[in-house]
């Protein structure tokens, strides 16, 4: 027996009813009967589709960007970035319009709040060719300005980032007071996702002179330059 509400919903649409009655008068009855018999299959199929959709989204979110090419103290020093003597320097390289780096910037702000006056912070804003507008008007620039003590550096055409091998927006380096590389990687657990991450935990440990579990983490962000 076909559920009354199934037919009622269909019958409310006069256009659909006219169409169906013209071409297949008993289509409503057959469709309603089929629906009644397979409702649980329908729900199960729907759940599987949703799971598949989330799997695709998760795959995107947890696929990191290109890893940075290994760099060293010499390359870093050649950049001439401002830093405080005797303190480690944290360098973050970002694309000014990368939405995924918003989470990285928030994590940097929280890290800066936790580790005040224990490190020098430089934020290198890559300005690729063809980027619309000024980078000072972007949300990322404004968020970086909010970080106490952070030095904001414009990197025209991304040459400085390329020099030290940074490829993905959100790349973070930590150099100790002797400009030795201590950490390279990202400080978010997935694209645009703030919260606890291996990168941030590692940086906190290093700044507080503890031994971290890892020294490299994946960087979840967009490419700094166009694909070649």
């Amino acid at each position, binding site marked *: 027996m076909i559920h009354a509400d199934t037919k009622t919903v269909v019958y409310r649409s006069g256009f659909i009813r006219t169409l169906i009655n013209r071409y297949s008068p008993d289509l409503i009855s057959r469709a309603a009967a089929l629906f009644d018999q397979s409702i649980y299959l329908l729900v199960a199929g729907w*759940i599987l589709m949703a799971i598949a959709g989330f799997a695709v989204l998760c795959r995107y979110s947890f696929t990191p960007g290109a890893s940075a090419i290994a760099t060293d103290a010499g390359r870093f020093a050649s950049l001439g970035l401002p830093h405080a003597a005797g303190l480690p320097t944290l360098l973050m390289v970002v694309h000014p319009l990368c939405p995924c780096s918003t989470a990285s910037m928030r994590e940097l702000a929280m890290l800066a709040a936790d580790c005040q006056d224990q490190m020098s912070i430089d934020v290198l804003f890559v300005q690729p060719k063809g980027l619309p507008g000024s980078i000072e008007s972007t949300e990322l620039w404004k968020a970086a300005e909010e970080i106490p003590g952070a030095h904001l550096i414009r990197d025209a055409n991304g040459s400085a980032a390329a020099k030290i091998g940074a490829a993905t927006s959100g790349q973070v380096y930590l150099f100790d007071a002797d400009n030795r590389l201590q950490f390279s990687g990202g400080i978010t657990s997935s694209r645009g996702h*703030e919260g606890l991450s*291996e990168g941030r935990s590692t940086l906190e440990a290093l700044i507080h002179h503890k031994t971290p579990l890892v020294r490299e983490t994946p960087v979840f962000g967009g490419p700094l330059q166009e694909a070649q």
Partner: protein
Amino acid sequence: MKLQSNLALTPSVVARADTLLREHQLSIAIRTDRLLAGLLEFEWGFGIILALWRSPLTWHGGLSSIHPHVIAAVFLGAVLLPVPILLSLVRPGESITRHSIAIAHMLMSSLLIHLGGGQIEMHFQIFGTLAFLAFSRDWRVLITATIVTGTDHVVRGLIMPESVFGVLHVSVWLTLEHVAWVTFDDIFLIGSCIRGVNEMRGIAETRAMLEQSYRDVERQVEERTSELKNAQEELMKAARTAGMAEIATSVLHNVGNVLNSVNISATIVADTLKQSEVASLTKVSDMIVEHKPDLARYLTADERGRLIPDFITDLAGCLGEEQASMLNEVQSLSKGIEHIKQIVAAQQSMAKKAHVLTRIKPFSIMETALSMQLMGQSGDIGLTKHYDELDECIIDQHKVLQVLINLLSNARQAVMARPASMRHITLTVERVEESAEERIRFRVKDNGMGIARENLARIFSHGFTTKKEGHGFGLHSSANAAAEMGGHLSVMSDGVDQGATFTLELPVLKSQEETLCKA
């Protein structure tokens, strides 16, 4: 007699309470399903706006394209909607619908958290969603929602632990903390659902008991009304019987009076016949026959014979007087018998024609009543009649006659207290001019003992009487009869010994249909 109701949980009350509870739960479930289905649509739109606001474009150096989060918000959100919305339309209130909506909401919450960049504030809506799901008051839905979230955390925790907790190596306490917060929320929400259902059950039981009580009271009211109707019918029958008895008594009384007259006349005739001079005529005849051979000498010479012609002459005169006297008495006798016949015939015709409407001139009913009441009493009560020239109208002759007989009987009894020469009754039959509706008025006015002012209000009450041998039915039944005909019976009296006037007013009926309507 107190009306009683039984507020107890009988099996029928419990069954009805179960039905009411199911209906209530179904209505809540349907309402909640449609509310949450609509909320899903709102969240979908919100997710798209959130994605467009936070991450509209993705950049490759200087090149941009639509961010995957926008695509996910549109398409993955669209995947989550159709089944719950369809079920809310074609299967509202059913278990499969509620659980599907719960799954959709938890998945939508997960999507929104993702689109919101994992901000802690976006996680709050998980707990808000659980509270919304509790609206249906089905705690099982909360279990489904919790299972969805728990499965997501467990599966991703196994495959990609950093996706759940952000780090690869997770303390078991962190896992338990995540579980504990959801469990904490579930405990209170499930408890609230169960309490809500128990309250609904209490309401359903109370309503079922009230319905039962209402039916009990209604049944008792019907029984009492039926008893009252029966009692009223019995009372009316008794009143009618009393009225009939009064008429019968009146008939018997009048017949009795006439029989007195008949008896007297018959006695006179008998005595006259006994004492008739015919015996003397026989003696004279015998003497004539005895002296037949010398009749002429006997009649002229005999001492006794000479008396015979004068005797015969005197005898003829006496016999003539006897005849006249007896003729007179026989006529009176005949008249009385005729009157008895008329009284009995009138009563019989009225009995046959009870409740039959007839077209008749109103004054003739008064005359009939008069004949039934004052027959045999003519001459001892002065009568004045004022009869208007009225056309025939439709009247319940029996009822009107019953009332008039009663009024005339009372008037007759009232004036009996006066000396014979002062007894007077005035009868009026007239059209009532002062009302818009056409009405007839019958009035019986006497100069008898009157009615005390304090008794005027009670004169028509059942059982009230000022007569030593009265039973208080007559005027009460007369008033009822008047009311049944759409009229009314009224009385006026200036007090004791001031006489009384009884007035019967009736509407003039044009047709039998009008009669039925008025009845």
